[in-house]
């Protein structure tokens, strides 16, 4: 599933409205965003967006060039699956079904996920990892019944060349 998406790491000036400019551009040009994560950088003048773009909706070249025309966009890096590390975080509250408590605990352990909070009928877990692992984990949790789930969307960095 992930292959049809492109990951763009975009350095933007930390100006008011910059997120609206970026999302507005995607909306009016018909580019679909799969996920968008915003974070500060080591330099307070800039922020970093990690945008996963649906490659079906528009040629990547157009997306990049139109983005680049925004005055507040400073640099755009296209990260391919191969040359980058992608991570995502999931938070999920799952039903605790009587008699299946052991199964769910085993599944949580096998993914090395964290248990954050436990109630009588629900359990909250978190896991960070490559998006495909998160997908898999979510599918496993669905068996038990997900009450609530939040995923952060992907953040990515280029792998360090040796």
């Amino acid at each position: 599933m992930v292959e049809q998406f492109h990951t763009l790491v975009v350095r933007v000036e930390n100006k008011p409205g910059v997120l609206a400019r970026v999302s507005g551009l995607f909306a009016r040009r018909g580019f679909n965003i799969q996920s968008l994560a915003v974070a500060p950088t080591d330099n307070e003048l800039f922020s970093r967006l990690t945008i996963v773009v649906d490659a079906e909706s528009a040629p990547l070249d157009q997306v990049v060039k139109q983005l680049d025309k925004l005055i507040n966009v400073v640099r755009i890096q296209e990260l391919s699956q191969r040359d980058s590390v992608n991570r995502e975080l999931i938070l999920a509250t799952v039903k605790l079904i009587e008699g299946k408590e052991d199964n769910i605990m085993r599944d949580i352990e096998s993914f090395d996920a964290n248990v954050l909070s436990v109630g009588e009928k629900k359990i909250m877990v978190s896991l960070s990892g490559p998006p495909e692992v998160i997908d898999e984990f979510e599918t496993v949790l669905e068996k038990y019944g997900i009450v609530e789930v939040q995923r952060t969307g992907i953040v990515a960095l280029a792998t360090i060349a040796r």
Partner: protein
Amino acid sequence: MKTNGGKALMDSLEAQGVEIVFGLPGGAILPAYDPLLDSSIRHVLVRHEQGAGHMAEGYAHATGLPGVAIVTSGPAATNMVTPLADAMLDSVPLVCITGQVASGAIGSDAFQECDTTGITMAVTKHNFLVTDASEIPQVIHDAFYIATTGRPGPVLVDIPKDLVDANNPASHFDDYKPSGHDLPGYNPIQDPDPQEVLKAAHLILQSKRPIIYSGGGILKARAADELRELAELLDVHVITTLMNRGGFPDDHPLALGMPGMHGNYTAVTAIQQSDLLITLGARFDDRVTGKVDEFAPDAKVIHADIDPAEFNKVRSANVSIQGDVGHTIIELIKALKQLLENHERPDWSEWKSQISGWKERFPLVYDEWQEGEGLKPQYVIEQLRDNTPDDTIVASGVGQHQMWASQFWKFNHPYTWINSGGLGTMGFAVPAAIGAKAGKPDRMVWAIDGDGCFQMTNQELVTARLEKFPVKIAVLNNGYLGMVRQWQELFYDERYSEVHLQSDLPDYKKLAEAMGCVGIRVESPEEVQPAIDQANEINDRPVVIDFRTEASENVYPMVPAGKSNSDVIVHPSQGNN
């Protein structure tokens, strides 16, 4: 030295060399209108903010300088949206200053508050919301820089009322002269990549049926001379899009005129059959390409543009050259001259005689006038063309009259044709003509307008009269939203739906007179030229001529929307092949 936001705004505009601004005051911009009185800047008081925007555009088109408009918040800012969108699509350098409610009131639904930067984000190259008075000199400096460099476009600066209010201590700051720009994300590229230029030169010399497809970028880059030099060096025909009429002289033997939906047969067909499009500052607009998949099917493409986002957007290019198109042409000429030293000149004579054949067989024509008919609009335009100075500036509205003006006028000088191409804004002509006259007071300025368009913005003739801009307006009054009527005739089985305006209301002559202009009505062909002569003699006020034109006249040739350019419909008298 201490200054305050309002004074700094005027000083900053003066520092940019601004001599004239178009605007209309109101609450939120009020404090900035006070220091305006002490500045050297001339302010033209419009009757509607849209007028201010289009005047600023007309000024920019005619002079190459950025046009400036100043208006208040809320409804004034929303009235400015159309000119901003127009300037965005036609790459017109524009700086628009809007008042905003006081900083502390932003976000509270205050009186005349609207999210101006939010609303105009999609129709500006960039916009700014000033948050501190001391930013004003830098922001204005940046705004003009962004508007005029790279691909030109509109920039809006939204300034809260308190920041230009001299009575507000927070609007005071130490004056400074901005030096440079802190815009790390904005680095327009001027100079073309020599490798790409060389590739382009090779492609040209390998081609068999080359054509120059030149667009508005030529005028923006002020590269009409370079274009001509290239065309003459290669001896290749030049097509000028609606946005580049005047960018290559129509009286030049290599001129083919306008392509596209209402382009002439030769321009349309030469592109269709070409094997190399030398695309200079043009963007493959859908009104030029028709059905994209069938546009110039055998052509390779050289695409030179300042904006790399245009490359491969509509039509993929074999060679794309980013840079100022003037610089690119100069480099291309050098490369070609060098190659030609050791390269035989390609023989394009067959191709060129094919083009000449089309030109001869399919000139622009229209039916002869018959007794009882309204005036032929094409005849009116020919008479205007032939009875005005060669360098007359023509502004136009949007519709049939616009297409006929582009077709039948002979544009022999750059910056003589001012129209709304990309957005197709009805109502553009009157204010744009006024703006052009403001920028070029010594030139004759005619607007060729439609009756529908004229009714959208004619109130600015009051502005023109009072501010002494003696423009001349030819209303081609066919009593219809003619272009729409034509489509209904041809594609909706003559089912006419809401297109009839009728010619007698308003009474254009009286309307003109009521606005302090001279009004003339022309109903028969022999009155046309005398009326034009009369108008040309009048230099102390605007003139409006109500030309009663034939309602049933259609614009030909025509490529129906979504059809291939190969299916161009010529004038019925030329048959259809």
